[in-house]
C-alpha cells in the first residue's frame, strides 16, 4: 500500500471527524493496470494506467449523503475536497437509501494466493507471452489472431469514522483471445483469467489454442435454421445468460426496475442441482477481497439453494430496508458514466460444479446445438426477462453424440427465467469467466438448456 494514499485517507477522515459529520468514510486505491491489445497477429498498443484515487463518502444530518472521488495531490488538496464535500452533503435532501454503514470493527482474514510478488517485473515479458499466444492459435489453425490482455496490481485502504479500517492488495490477469479464418464468419474465442500472472502462461496458451481450434472447426459454417433446440452453452455463454440471473438478487436492481426476482423469494426457479452463491472469499476470484466498501467482512451468501431463491445480497443500509442482514456486499457502485451510489454489489458468482463430462452433455438424440460465445444480450423487459442475444464465434449442430455441422447467423430469442428453469444438465468443467460480456467474475460450467428458441434474419 502506498503510504501516501493511506495517509491522505487518514487525513480526510481526521478532517471530517473534527467537523463532526455523522460519517466520513474513505477508500484509497493505488493501482497500476496494464493492457496489451493485439490484432492481425501483432501487437497494436501497450497501455498502462496509474490510478491514485480517493473515494469519499460524507454523511451529515443523519442521512444527507455525498459521494465524491478525486486524486489527492497534497494535504491542502485533500482539505479542499473534504470541505467541498461536507458543504455539498449539507445541501442534499435526506436519502431513504442510506440507513447506516458497518460499525463493528472486525479482524479481517488476509487474502492468500491473490498477490503475485513478481508483478512488478512481469510487464517486461508480457509482449513475448502474447506473441506466444498468437503463435499457439496459429498452430491450431487460425489465420488471424486478435485479443486483449490485462494484468496489474491494486492496493486498497479503507478507513471509516464508523470504526472499520483495513487494507488489501491483489493482482490479476485477464485474456480474451479471438482467432479468425480468412472469412469473416469463422472464428473462435478463448478466455483465461486469475490472480497470479507469472504462473498463468499455460492457461493463456490453452486459451489461445482453444480460439485457434474453434476458428478452424468453424470453417464453412452453414446458416442455422430457426426453431426450437436444446442448447449446450459453454461457460462463457452460460455466464452471460443464465449465469447473470443472480444479478437480479440485488435490492438495487429491484428498486431500479431491473430485477425479475423482486417477488420470487422462496420460489423454486431452477432444477435442484443448481446451487449458486455470491462468494466474496472465492480463491483466485477476481472479485475476492477481505472486506466490502463499508468494512464488513466478505462472506459466502447462498443465492439459489437446490434451485430455490434463498437470499439477496445486502449492504448495511439495504439490509435494514429489506429486514435482513448485511452480506458483506456494501459497495460504492458506479452508475452509468460517473454517478456513484452506496448499494450492494456482487463479488464472485459461484455455481456449484456439475458431474457431466462434455461427452455426456453432447450424448443426446434431441435437436441440439453447442454455442461457444455470444454477445449483445438485450432485454425487452428485465422483469419478464424476454431477451435475445447473438452467438458469435464457433457454434455447431450436435448429432449422434458429436459436434457436426458448424453453424452461423442466428439469434437466441427467449426468456431467461424459462431457460434457468430448463437447465437439464451441468458439466464438471467449472471455470472462472470474466470478460467484456461478463462483468461479474462467474464460476460456472458448460451446461445444457432444453427447448430454446432460435431465430434468424427473415431477409
Amino acid at each position, binding site marked *: 500500500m502506498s503510504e501516501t494514499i493511506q495517509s491522505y485517507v487518514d487525513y480526510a477522515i481526521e478532517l471530517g471527524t473534527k467537523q463532526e459529520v455523522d460519517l466520513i468514510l474513505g477508500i484509497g486505491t493505488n493501482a497500476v493496470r496494464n493492457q496489451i491489445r493485439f490484432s492481425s497477429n501483432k501487437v497494436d498498443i501497450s497501455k498502462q494506467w496509474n490510478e491514485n484515487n480517493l473515494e469519499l463518502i460524507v454523511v451529515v444530518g443523519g442521512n444527507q449523503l455525498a459521494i465524491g472521488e478525486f486524486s489527492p495531490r497534497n494535504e491542502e488538496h485533500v482539505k479542499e475536497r473534504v470541505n467541498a464535500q461536507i458543504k455539498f452533503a449539507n445541501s*442534499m435532501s435526506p436519502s431513504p437509501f442510506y440507513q447506516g454503514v458497518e460499525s463493528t470493527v472486525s479482524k479481517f482474514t488476509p487474502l492468500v494466493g491473490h498477490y503475485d510478488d513478481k508483478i512488478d517485473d512481469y510487464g517486461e515479458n508480457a509482449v513475448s507471452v502474447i506473441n506466444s499466444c498468437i503463435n499457439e492459435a496459429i498452430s491450431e489453425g487460425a489465420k488471424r489472431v486478435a485479443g486483449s490482455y490485462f494484468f496489474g496490481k491494486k492496493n486498497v485502504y479503507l478507513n471509516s469514522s464508523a470504526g472499520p479500517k483495513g487494507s488489501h492488495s491483489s493482482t490479476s490477469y485477464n485474456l480474451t483471445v479471438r482467432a479468425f479464418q480468412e472469412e469473416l464468419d469463422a472464428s473462435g474465442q478463448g478466455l483465461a483469467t486469475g490472480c497470479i500472472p507469472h504462473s498463468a502462461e499455460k492457461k493463456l496458451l490453452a486459451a489461445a489454442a482453444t480460439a485457434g481450434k474453434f476458428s478452424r472447426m468453424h470453417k464453412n459454417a452453414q446458416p442455422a435454421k430457426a426453431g426450437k433446440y436444446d442448447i449446450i452453452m459453454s461457460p462463457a455463454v452460460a455466464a452471460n445468460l443464465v449465469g447473470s440471473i443472480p444479478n437480479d438478487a440485488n435490492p438495487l436492481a429491484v428498486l431500479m426496475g431491473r430485477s425479475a426476482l423482486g417477488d420470487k423469494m422462496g420460489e423454486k426457479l431452477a432444477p435442484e442441482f443448481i446451487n449458486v452463491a455470491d462468494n466474496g472469499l472465492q480463491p483466485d476470484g477476481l472479485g475476492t477481497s477481505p472486506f466490502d466498501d463499508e468494512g464488513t467482512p466478505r462472506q459466502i451468501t447462498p443465492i439459489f439453494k437446490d434451485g430455490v431463491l434463498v437470499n439477496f445480497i445486502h449492504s448495511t443500509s439495504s439490509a435494514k430496508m429489506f429486514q435482513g442482514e448485511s452480506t458483506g456486499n456494501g459497495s460504492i457502485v458506479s452508475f452509468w458514466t460517473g*454517478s456513484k451510489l452506496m448499494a450492494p454489489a456482487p463479488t464472485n458468482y459461484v455455481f456449484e460444479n456439475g458431474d457431466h463430462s462434455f461427452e455426456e452433455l453432447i450424448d443426446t438424440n434431441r435437436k441440439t446445438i453447442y454455442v461457444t460465445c455470444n454477445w449483445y*444480450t438485450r432485454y425487452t423487459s428485465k*422483469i419478464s426477462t424476454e431477451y435475445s442475444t447473438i452467438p458469435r464465434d464457433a457454434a455447431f449442430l450436435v448429432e449422434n453424440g458429436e459436434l457436426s455441422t458448424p453453424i452461423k447467423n442466428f439469434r437466441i430469442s427467449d426468456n431467461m427465467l424459462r431457460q434457468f428453469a430448463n437447465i437439464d444438465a451441468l458439466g464438471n468443467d467449472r471455470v472462472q469467466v470474466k470478460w467484456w460480456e461478463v462483468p461479474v467474475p462467474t464460476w460456472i460450467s458448460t451446461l445444457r438448456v432444453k427447448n430454446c428458441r432460435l431465430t434468424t434474419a427473415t431477409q
Partner: protein
Amino acid sequence: MSSFADLADFGMEYARDQGASYSEARLIDGQKSVFIMQNGHIISGSESPWQGIGFRVLLNGGLSFVSVDNLTKKAVKKAIDVGIKLAKNSNPRDKIDFGEPVSNEAKWKVQAKESLRDVTQETMVTKLQELDKIAENNGISTRAQIFEAQSSTKYLVTSEGTRIEAELSMLKCFGLLTAKGILDSEQRFVDLTRSTGWEGTKTWTEEYEEECARIAKVAAQADHKLTGKIDFVVSPEVVGIICHENCGHPSEGDRILGREGAQAGESFWRDLKLGESRVGSEHVTIAEDPTIKGTGGFYEFDDEGVKARERLLIKDGIANEPLLNREFGVRFGTESNGSARSSDFNREPIIRMANTYMKPGDFSLDELIEDVKHGVLMHSFTEWNIDDRRYQSKYVGFECYEIQNGEVTDTMVRRPIMELTSIGLFSSIDGVSKDRIFDFPGICGKSDPAQGVPVYAGGGYIRMRDILLG
C-alpha cells in the same frame, strides 16, 4: 486554459526528448455534478473534480498509451518513462504510421449561455424532481433518473505542433422507466443528453412529458400481434439507431481492418469495394457529421487534432467512405477524416461515430403512409441487437400503430420484430421523408476497456417494403 496545461506540455516534450517520434498529451480538467433520483427521492449526489492526462507515444513504429490522474510532475515523468518503454517493447512487425504531420492550432467551445458551473445544486435537483413528477403523473410506477452536468477544458498538445483548447459543456440525463402493462412491464431508457449549457434543459419537461405519455399508452394499449409480410414506416428515432448500428459501426476503419477483432468485432464492409458496392437502395444516403452544434457528438477538432467534417458513409445506396483516424487513414491509403474520439483522459482515441443520420429524401410523412396497404408505423424501439460484423440486426418496435389502406389506425401493434441483414434492410427502403430530426441521443459503447461516448442519430421517416415479421 487549465492550470495543468504546463504539465501536459511537459509530458509531451519529455516523451519527445526520450526519443518518441510522436508524442501527444490530452488533458481534461473539469468537474462533474451528479445526482441519482429513484421514485421521487434523491438517493445520491456528488460534485467531483474530473482531471487527468492521457499520453500517446510512438517510437520505432510501436504505440503506447499511459494515463495519470495524479497531476504532479513526478507522476507524469514516471508515466512517460513507462510509455517509452512500452512503445519500445511492443516492436510490431508492421510499424504504425500516423502519416503526414498534423499541426493545427485552435480554440473552440460548446456555446453555453448558462454555464453549468454557475447552476446551483438546488436548481439541478428541482429539475430532476420535476421530471420525476411528470413520470409519476403518467403512471410510471418505477422511475430512476440519473443526471450529470459536466463542464471541462480539454487541451490537446502534440510534438507535431498541434495545440487545441476546447471548452466543453455536456448535460446527461437518463430516465429508466418501468410501467406496468396489460401484458407485461414496459421499460424504456429516455436519454436527454446534449452538448450545451443549462439552457438545454428548457425543453426537457416537454420531451419527458411526451415520452412518459407514450410509455403509458404502450403499457395500456399495445396488445395487437401481427404476423406475415408487411410494410414499415419507421420514425427518425428508429432510423437513427439503424444508421448507427447497420451503417456507422461497419464503416469504422479499425473494425474493417480487424483492430477491434476481439472486442467490438470486425465488419462486413471488409469485403466491399468502396465507391462500388451496393448496400442499399438508391434512396439511402447516410452521413456522419460531428459539426452539428448542440448534439452529443459535437466537436470541431477530433482527439488527434484533425478538423472535423461531414463524411458520407453511404451515398445513393453505395458504400462510400469509412470513418478514419490518422493510423487508419494511412492504412486505407488516404488520410484521417477526423473520427478519433476518446471518452476520457484515460482512454486512447479510437475511431468513433459522432452524429449519424439518413439524408432527407423527397417525401412527406403522409406521402410515405398513403401508399401503404398494410403496415406498421414504428415510432420507437425497445430491444435491439446486431452481430459483431454488423450484418444481422434485430429491432423490436415499442410504440407502433397499424396502417390500413394508407391510414394510420389507432390499433397499437405489440412488439413487431424486424430481424434483417444490413443489406436486406437498406435494400427494402423505397422512400425517405424530407425531415432531419435527431431523435436518438445515446451513449455508444466500443472497445475494451469500454469507451462510452455521446452520439446522436436520426434522419427522416423511411418506408420499408415487404418485411417478413420475425
